[in-house]
């Protein structure tokens, strides 16, 4: 058992927000999903106050050792989430972390308060880093704006508050320190790296949303550097992610100071990547390979 902000988790592998839809996966795989749930906690896709349809297609681009997405945060909105999604997510055998995002302090406050009031929700992840929505980027890239946001919403959350940082910044550790100082219980990183692709047949940007975010193995070592930099500066736990596709990658992130590791894009290639990576990690740890006590800097 791992204690993460008071949550007792079976193993350190969770999913990255927006990279696993437990409701859709249950339609695809049936109740076997509940019997063998790949993650020790489930992180929902980002919820916004109003429903969003998301960006026009195409939404995906395959990049060298990774992919770019421009999904645009489609979701049912807060009410739809509480009424439609939450009852189904409550059936999962693991703790639920709800990821929210707002474009103003007030929106975030409403989201955090409403979600935090629900017993089904074990923790809240605040997405301040989505590269597809202008505001997400700006708040999360600047320590001062982020501090103001966390200060305003922390008292309303009632649940552990995880701040998901953007990697598209000069000094991610400074932003993490700002979040910690205003009472964030944990930080998570990295979100996707701002990226772009052109239509090979001409005519401008490939993605319907214009730009997008890069994820997958291509960003693995960038994520590792950012997690290490943040771990050196904060003492709250870190959920680390970015390009994790095997137990050794998760182990690296734990080695530099992460508490949990999230699997994102690899879920698309292997729907049970979470369980596989947890098992690989366990056998690495039994084999006595570099452990989380190691100092990697």
């Amino acid at each position: 058992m791992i204690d993460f902000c008071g949550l007792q988790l079976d193993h350190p592998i969770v999913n990255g927000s927006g990279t696993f839809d437990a409701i859709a996966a249950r339609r695809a795989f049936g109740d076997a999903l509940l019997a063998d749930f790949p993650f020790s906690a489930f992180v929902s896709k980002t919820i916004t106050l109003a429903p969003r349809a998301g960006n026009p297609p195409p939404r995906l681009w395959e990049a060298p050792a990774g992919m770019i997405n421009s999904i645009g945060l489609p979701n049912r909105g807060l009410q739809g989430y509480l009424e439609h999604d939450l009852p189904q997510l409550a059936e999962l055998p693991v703790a639920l972390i709800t990821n929210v995002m707002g474009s103003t302090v007030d929106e975030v406050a409403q989201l955090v308060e409403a979600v935090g009031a629900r017993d089904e929700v074990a923790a809240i992840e605040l997405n301040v880093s989505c590269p597809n929505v202008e505001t997400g980027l700006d708040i999360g890239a600047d320590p001062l704006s982020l501090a103001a946001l966390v200060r305003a919403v922390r008292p309303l959350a009632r649940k552990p508050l995880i701040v998901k940082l953007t990697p598209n910044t000069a000094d991610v550790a400074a932003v993490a320190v700002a979040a910690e100082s205003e009472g964030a219980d944990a930080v998570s990183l990295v979100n996707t790296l701002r990226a772009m692709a052109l239509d090979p047949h001409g005519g401008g940007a490939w993605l319907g949303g214009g730009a997008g975010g890069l994820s997958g193995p291509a960003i693995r070592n960038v994520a590792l550097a950012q997690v290490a930099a943040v771990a050196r500066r904060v003492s709250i736990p870190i959920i680390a992610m970015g390009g994790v596709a095997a137990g050794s990658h998760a182990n690296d992130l734990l080695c530099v100071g992460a508490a949990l590791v999230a699997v994102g894009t690899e879920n698309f290639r292997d729907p049970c990547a979470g369980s596989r990576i947890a098992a690989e990690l366990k056998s690495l740890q039994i084999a006595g390979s570099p452990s989380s006590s190691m100092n990697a800097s």
Partner: protein
Amino acid sequence: MRPIAPLGRRRVAVTAVDDVGAYRVLRVADRSGPLPAAGQFYMLATVQRWGGGGDERPYLPRAFSFLSAGDGELRFMFEDVGPGTHRLGELVAGDELWITGPLGAGFRPPGDHRRALLAGGGIGIPPLAAWASELGSRPLALLGFRDGEHAAGAALIEDQARVRVATDDGSLGHHGLVTELLAAELARDGRCVVYSCGPPRMLEAVRALCAEHDVPAQLALEAGMACGFGACYGCVVALRDGGYARLCVDGPVLDAERLQPLAEDAH
């Protein structure tokens, strides 16, 4: 209830590889999966070296409709159009694949005393062949191809359907578009449901034609997919209600009347 996939990807072996005209047919042994329903698909990736091709791709698995299934074997059909299909085209018997599936929602029966009319072409054959086989009634299938070499693919559905072929270059059957055959057929007898799969431009013509004739149509659509099981929200098509449907869980077969006009390019 649609057939449900075993949880996760599984490792299967290629049992045989055949060339049919311009197409490659891959047989794989799949003893642990359920029998899929026509129109469903699988996500495929090779176990060895999925990656390292053009521009360092493929990285994500690729979606393929099954062509036929039974006796613990699945058949897929494709043409080399990019790094993923190129890599799949290198496989020989004994090589291994990761597959996830069957996924998505397939075709629904015509009902309503309507006959099933199949229209499609090119790489759209697999779901139509599977559907004709499931229907068992040897429906009429109107198939369009670029040229004779591609039209050879029609052989893969000839046992299950009565096939009429059109080719762009006139080398086989009707010289012209398959939608010309379809228009004539709808004019002759409109009490049908059209089942269609093919390139975007063809599907859009089919959609428009069926709308015009007020004939229901079920389209097996394509979109770039990352996951195939609803996780990434990448595979959407625009709906008339202003929203989007995820093809991998809400489709790939969708009622034409729910759709906005389809973009003509590969987008």
